[in-house]
């Protein structure tokens, strides 16, 4: 099975080209990190994979679990097992976290032709996963991200990931705005979730996050494409000398 294969992907927004013959292959169970200077197209890549309709796909192919990802709409991609942890999770006052997450997991289960999770089982699952992330029960009674601190928003993204159990999780600069303690909690959450069936694409500016997560591959991205790939040592090189040498 081809897990994720992006082949010569070209993407633009309002006529401006952002991704430029972008290629990457991620296999089941692998953790990939993409680093790159501001404006190189990292967040665009994350959003295009999640199905954001603001972008125009000019050409290229994206195969996810043997299916053409570009044929699927936003929710179909999520139901198929793709999860994007947002850089700036949006506040939605009035939409309560618990019923929203239950509706999310049930839409996925329905798509997989599995029985929906009942209220009691879901409450147990949510409580267990929230406790592991140090999220209080009170927080689960609130509206989505409303009044959350930066760290709380990111922890809540990890909670959603742990509930929805995606095959591919994309983290778009999850470390931005996090202090050291919050970063540790978030990365521990990610590490707890890792196994041989789950894959990750981590987008970041900093080596610190990768020190906690230990990616299998690190890629450097510039001007909409990957220009160099390697292991964790590549992150250390960037930390030391910046992107000037790439």
């Amino acid at each position: 099975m081809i897990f994720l294969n992006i082949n010569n992907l070209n993407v633009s927004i309002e006529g401006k080209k952002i991704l430029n013959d972008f290629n990457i292959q991620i296999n089941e169970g692998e953790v990939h990190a993409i680093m790159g200077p501001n404006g190189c197209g990292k967040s665009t890549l994350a959003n295009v994979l999640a199905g954001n309709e603001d972008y125009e796909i000019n050409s290229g192919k994206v195969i996810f679990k043997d299916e053409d990802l570009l044929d699927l709409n936003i929710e179909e991609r999520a139901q198929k097992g793709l999860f994007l942890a947002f850089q700036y999770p949006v506040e939605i006052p009035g939409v309560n976290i618990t019923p929203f997450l239950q509706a999310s997991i049930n839409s996925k289960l329905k798509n997989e032709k599995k029985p929906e999770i009942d209220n009691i089982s879901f409450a147990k699952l949510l409580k267990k996963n929230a406790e592991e992330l140090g999220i209080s029960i009170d927080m689960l009674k609130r509206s989505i991200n409303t009044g959350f601190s930066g760290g709380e928003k990111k922890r809540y993204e990890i909670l959603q990931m742990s509930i929805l159990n995606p095959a591919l999780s994309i983290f778009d600069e999850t470390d931005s705005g996090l202090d050291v303690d919050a970063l540790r909690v978030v990365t521990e959450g990610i590490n707890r979730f890792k196994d041989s069936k789950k894959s990750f694409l981590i987008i970041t500016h900093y080596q610190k996050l990768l020190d906690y997560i230990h990616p299998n591959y690190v890629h450097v991205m510039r001007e909409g494409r990957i220009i160099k790939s390697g292991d964790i040592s590549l992150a250390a090189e960037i930390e030391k000398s910046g992107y000037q040498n790439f």
Partner: protein
Amino acid sequence: MTFENNFINHSKDYIFSANETLANQREQSFRKILKNNYDKKNNESLKNITISDLSKFDYFYKYENKAPKVSVLDSINYEIRVVNGMCQNFEDDNIEIRNLQNYDFNSFLDQDNNNSDDIIIDLNKIFLNSGIFFNIKNDTKLNIRLIHDTSDNFTVFQNNFINFKKNCEINFEDHFNLSHNTINNINYNTKVEECAVVKHNIFQDFSSSNKLYLTSNTVCKKNSSYNQNTYNFSKGFVRNFHNISLNGEFAKASLKGCFFLKDENICTNKTNIVHNAEHCISDQTYKGILNHNSKANYYSNTFVSENAQKTEGYQLSKGILLTDHCSFFSKPELRIFADDVKCSHGSTIGPVDETALYYLRSRGINKNEAMKMIISSFIEEDLQNLDHQARIIISNNLTNFLNSLSDD
């Protein structure tokens, strides 16, 4: 029939028609309307009103013995059925309800006049054919449900007086069961006496052939509280104009409304709160969700008089436009003549938040359901203080509205 012909042919049918003073006032109002020829440009009361609905309509009103009824469901729950503007006269230790009598004429003349430029109120005075006097006695705690039944083709011009006496605590509900092709021009004059607490919920849900022009003028005395919540799910035209005067210290008032419009429907809203005393708090919040080619407007006014120090006054309007063809015009106004006040106003109108929609969909929720979640959340906070039964009414109406989105 034209406005002139209605006036000439039916002038003897109206309440207080034998009174010369009122006859003169009616004549003056009639001449004023004719002279100005419904000058829409300079009159807020006519915004989004179809002039032909006022200048030409079939006036029809006759007393029918349809047994309007007051039901005392238990010691605190009353249900009052008003049929074509008439009620059953009733009195017990808690309330007095009766149809307007000739001796109420002075109350009618003395009613607080916030509406000098309001043509709808002029029409109410000219064609007045019914009215109810409510007296809610001191210290009572009641839930009162008022059901307005209007029969086919009736034109109800009603002027009501409600006195909420000292220390009463009342949940008051208005429901409009309008059958077919009715015109309902209803004006409330409400007094909320010292330390009285009134929660007034208004439910508007009727078919497209009906029209409702609902106006209220409320005066709040010292330490009283009046909270009005209007929920408009009607397919027919609705005008909600509500005024409050805070005349006693530490009085509190809120005028809140939610409306849900679709197809070609129109509604027009205005709220006006006048602060005449110190330490009063007011809140005006209207929210609308508009689909298809629907249209709405909302004027909100807060007036703080010179002696109303320590005032708090808040205004907010929010609208979600579901198509490019609907429109919502909002105009908040603050006029402040005291120097120690806290006042604010805000207005946000636009399409559904695409970022929120993207976020919900990225968690596997389909676009239609995500849209419903966002729209429900938009009014969720306005439902918090409703009792169980009222929540069910709103929830059912909201579900119907949201389901109609799926049909598009």
